[in-house]
């Protein structure tokens, strides 16, 4: 108890520092995968991608990041265990942040496809299971999270497949694909707006002090979707048919999809912000609530919204300082993805991630995106996909979990020895 009172400010400062660093890393590295698809398909320029990412990562983190943050904060370890010695929770969360940060730096240096989500969850489980006791881990909660890591790529894969099939049927198979694209693209935009608004209204606005019933949320979401669809309809007028090669004039069709891609890019940034920011600020929120309550672990303090702001700010800082380079690299490599493919994969991913954010499941955006891309590939949408890379990406979390765990255990005992 006395440790908390004595070093309270130091802990908060350290936590903010580590949390910001972690968020910075997400912004510098992770966002690139989320935005790379849009840049690679040439639907938006890098500059536009940065602006979209800044606005919507921030909005996603702030408006819809609460649920996942609370899962990371109290869904993995059992707070009851720490009632006698809350400083252990503080050490553990600090260790987790640092461990995940170090692991991510190492991995991105070597170009390993690891996920921030897996690192932080592995780190938290590691310190709790070894540093405290096996019983201190909510194993059923961890099990659910692990399940969501399997189901999220599957869900986005299915959605990607269905979305691409639908636009094949509705647009590419029609007599005049360009006219069909203009007709149906606002419908897809409606879906983008609807799903994002739905999660925000039902899950996100609570901590901002707005209480909305389910029915109201549904109505507002429909209205948001309609508003966006109308905007899309209005923007479409400027897309003119130009002479293009081929009977189907697919270059013209892709121009309409490029407009749609702007909307899905926003949705993607929003979804990514809503889910991944929690990896940085979930532990931070846990530390702050313990310290502010003077060591009272069980107190039901809600995540203060300024904590979400630190995370969102960190992501934006990382993006501005370093992320734009990574986006440019990723974008220049993903040229196979035309706007129609990029749209299907991105929307499938954004939908899956934002739904996961709504139910508080911390999932990996990159894995989900890989699932979405594979779904489009299965619908015969892509010329060539490297399955070996898919294997290595999915296998990486098997390595990341123990790696994050071991690092956080070591750091936990160092912190415990130096402060205790």
């Amino acid at each position, binding site marked *: 108890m006395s440790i908390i009172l004595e070093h309270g400010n130091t802990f908060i400062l350290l936590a903010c520092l580590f949390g910001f660093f972690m968020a910075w890393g997400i912004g510098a590295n992770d966002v690139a995968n989320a935005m790379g698809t849009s840049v690679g398909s040439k639907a938006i320029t890098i500059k536009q991608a940065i602006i979209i990412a800044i606005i919507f990562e921030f909005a996603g983190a702030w408006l819809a990041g609460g649920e996942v943050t609370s899962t990371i904060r109290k869904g993995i370890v059992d707070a009851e265990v720490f009632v006698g010695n809350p400083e252990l929770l503080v050490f553990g969360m600090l260790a987790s942040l640092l461990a995940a940060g170090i692991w991510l730096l190492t991995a*991105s240096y070597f170009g390993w496809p690891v996920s921030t989500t897996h690192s932080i969850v592995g780190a938290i489980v590691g310190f709790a299971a070894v540093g405290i006791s096996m019983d201190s881990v909510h194993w059923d909660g961890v099990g659910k999270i692990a399940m969501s890591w399997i189901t999220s790529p599957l869900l986005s894969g299915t959605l990607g497949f269905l979305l691409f099939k639908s636009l094949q049927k509705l647009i590419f198979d029609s007599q005049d694909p360009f006219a069909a694209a203009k007709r149906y693209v606002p419908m897809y935009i409606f879906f983008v707006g609807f799903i994002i608004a739905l999660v925000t209204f039902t899950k996100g606005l609570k901590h901002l002090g707005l209480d909305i019933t389910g029915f109201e949320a549904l109505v507002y979401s429909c209205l948001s979707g309609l508003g966006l669809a109308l905007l899309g309809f209005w923007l479409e007028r400027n897309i003119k048919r130009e002479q293009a090669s081929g009977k189907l004039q697919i270059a013209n069709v892709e121009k309409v999809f490029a407009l749609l891609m702007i909307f899905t890019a926003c949705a993607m940034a929003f979804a990514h912000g809503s889910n991944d920011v929690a990896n940085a600020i979930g532990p931070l929120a846990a530390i702050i609530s313990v310290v502010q309550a003077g060591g009272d672990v069980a107190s039901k303090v809600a995540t203060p919204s300024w904590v979400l702001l630190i995370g969102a700010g960190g992501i934006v800082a990382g993006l501005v300082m370093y992320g734009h380079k990574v986006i440019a690299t990723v974008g220049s490599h993903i040229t196979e993805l035309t706007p129609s493919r990029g749209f299907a994969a991105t929307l499938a991913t954004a939908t899956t991630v934002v739904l996961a954010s709504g139910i508080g499941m911390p999932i990996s955006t990159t894995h989900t995106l890989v699932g979405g891309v594979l779904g489009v590939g299965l619908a015969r949408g892509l010329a060539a996909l490297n399955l070996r890379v898919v294997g290595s990406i999915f296998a990486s979390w098997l390595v990341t979990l123990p790696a994050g765990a071991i690092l956080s255990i070591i750091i936990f005992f160092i912190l415990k020895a130096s402060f205790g």
Partner: protein
Amino acid sequence: MPSSNPFSRLFGRSPFGPLQEHIAKSHAASEQLRAFMTAVLADDWEEAARVRELINQLEHEADDLKREIRLGLPNSLFMPVSRSDLLELVSLQDKIANRAKDIAGLMLGRKMQIPEPLAKPMIGFINSGIAAVEQARQTINEIDELLESGFGRQVTDLLTQMIEKLDSLEHEADQLEVEIRGQLFELEKELPPVDVMFLYRIIDWVGELSDRAQRVGGRLQILMAR
């Protein structure tokens, strides 16, 4: 960061671009047969040797492309078409260039003379083979649109029509082959028997040009259907 981003490595190199380059080489090689035959009929063996060199070179380039495509198709590559069908398609395309080389090689090696009454039908026959190869090339070039539309029904319908036209071109070439064989049969008693044997072989090989072009179309049809 030394290695590139893992997510961007997910996207493999498409084999369809090199595939189209490959059929362009095969087509170019067979198209040279027209110039070659003109030189042979004019008894200009210097020119014929030059054209054969060109055909050889084109065939070599096609071989290189074939190897490049094969090496670029590891088992782990996930494509909208079956890998074995694609490899089969490449080797069929390659055989067109090989046959063009064989024809030029044999005719130059033996300094073969075409009997005067056969000269005109022979040019027509060669042209029919080249036309079939040309149609095969155009069909393969539609793969771009096939991919862009995600194997949409409109493009598959279009390709089916093009393949039907390829079939009818092959049929025309077949008929010309029957005619030219008949004409040679009329003349064969007056010609040296060994020359006649080799003339029959050349006729056979020219017929194979359109035959192989048709098989490229057939394999493409299998490739589309899944």
